[in-house]
């Protein structure tokens, strides 16, 4: 990491923990919850957001002095929408099944508040290189939560990880299933995503008391 100064490293590493976009900044919740029933979908979503946010932050940062502030939201939306169309077309071409699973949520990256939030808060006031780092860092923080939630939901819900039967075969009764373990199908339903994220927030805030809110 000799390339990066200490400040730049902070841009990438802070969003992974103490300034996480989902658990602290409360940005980008919608897609985080809806698509995390499988680990694979979570990873793909994380990578897509990383691409859109990294490139988008650079583009907005390059244009920041020529965008009139009154119409900046529309300009930002157009930039994001163009990037998301690229992601959507790539997914449709190379991972069609997955793009079916993600359904409208790829399109909803456009209105993912994490993107608009970082554009507004960072890219409009900083240079392209630092904006790029900020975009990658925040998207990584977002992807981290997605992967954690996806990991637990897929493991407890269907007993698999990335499609591999890590806990044994539920029908042939091997592995854990041999001693009477059952999958908790409830984990696959969407409300459990909220509760898993709630528990992540709980764990994070009990480890770092400074993050606790007033009420």
């Amino acid at each position, binding site marked *: 990491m000799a390339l990066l100064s200490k400040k730049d490293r902070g841009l990438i590493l802070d969003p992974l923990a103490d300034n996480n976009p989902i*658990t602290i900044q*409360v*940005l*980008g*919740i*919608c*897609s985080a*919850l*809806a698509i995390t029933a499988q680990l694979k979908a979570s990873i793909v979503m994380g990578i897509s957001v990383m691409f859109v946010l990294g490139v988008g932050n650079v583009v907005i940062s390059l244009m920041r002095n020529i965008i009139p502030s009154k119409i900046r*939201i*529309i300009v930002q*939306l*157009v930039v994001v*929408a*163009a990037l*998301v*169309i690229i992601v*959507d*077309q790539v997914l449709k071409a190379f991972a069609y099944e997955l793009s079916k699973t993600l*359904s*409208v949520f790829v*399109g*909803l990256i*456009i*209105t*993912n*508040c994490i993107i*608009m939030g970082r554009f507004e808060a960072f890219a409009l006031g900083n240079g392209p290189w630092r904006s790029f780092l900020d975009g990658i860092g925040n998207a990584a923080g977002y992807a981290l939560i997605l992967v954690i939630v996806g990991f637990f939901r897929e493991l407890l819900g269907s007993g698999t990880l990335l499609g591999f039967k890590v806990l044994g075969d539920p029908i042939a009764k091997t592995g854990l299933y041999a001693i009477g373990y059952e999958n908790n199908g409830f984990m696959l*339903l*969407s*409300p*459990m*995503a*909220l*509760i898993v*994220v*709630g*528990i992540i*927030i*709980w*764990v*994070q*805030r*009990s480890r770092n*008391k400074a993050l*606790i*809110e*007033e*009420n």
Partner: protein
Amino acid sequence: MEHVELFFKSIFIDNMVFATFLGMCSYLAVSKKVSTAVGLGAAVIFVLAVTVPMNWLLDQYVLRPGALTWLGAEYADYDLSFLSFILFIATIATMVQLVEIVVEKFAPALYTSLGIFLPLIAVNCAILGGSLFMQSRDIATLGLAFNYGLASGIGWFLAILAIAAIREKIRYSNVPAPLRGLGITFIITGLMAIGFMSFGGMLTGGEEKTEKTDEAAQIETITQDKDAEEPLAEVSQELNNK
């Protein structure tokens, strides 16, 4: 009937917040007080009811494969559906801007209550989500599209109203310190979503009719039994009285 079914389905079963998690960001950020929640909810209903039919027209006459046939037979092969994201979001952003201007001009009172929320709405995923679901679920007519937008908005409104009311009361409870604020809101929303799942059986169509008649028959037999018992009870009461 189709309209009524879609209406209730969009409000309860496919509730924007609890079933698809759309608009969660503003749902979490603006739900600290009931009065602001009502303002934002009303604005969402309004914008959804306007933009979903607009985008339905766009989808029908510009975007879907073969939609451009009205321009002439040579356009019949065009498929512009890859442009739907950018056109939908442009429509939404301009509609929001337009609505803001119109409301400011003709209903200043409404503007003061909704005004600050309108720009927020352009980036609320519930709005774009409404249009994208409208597209992916193949809503058939303009009337149904309007119905869908309106009902989804009402569902979102109910959800934010409920969580705001709960959050106003929860400050009197002793929540574990690390869960305060965001954490407990997530868990409450999760529990509410589980509650809303029970609406899932509300509209299952014709299959349930047979079950219902069975139930009705059972109820009838039970009441008959009761009728049969009643004379006995009367007799025993008379005996007691004597």
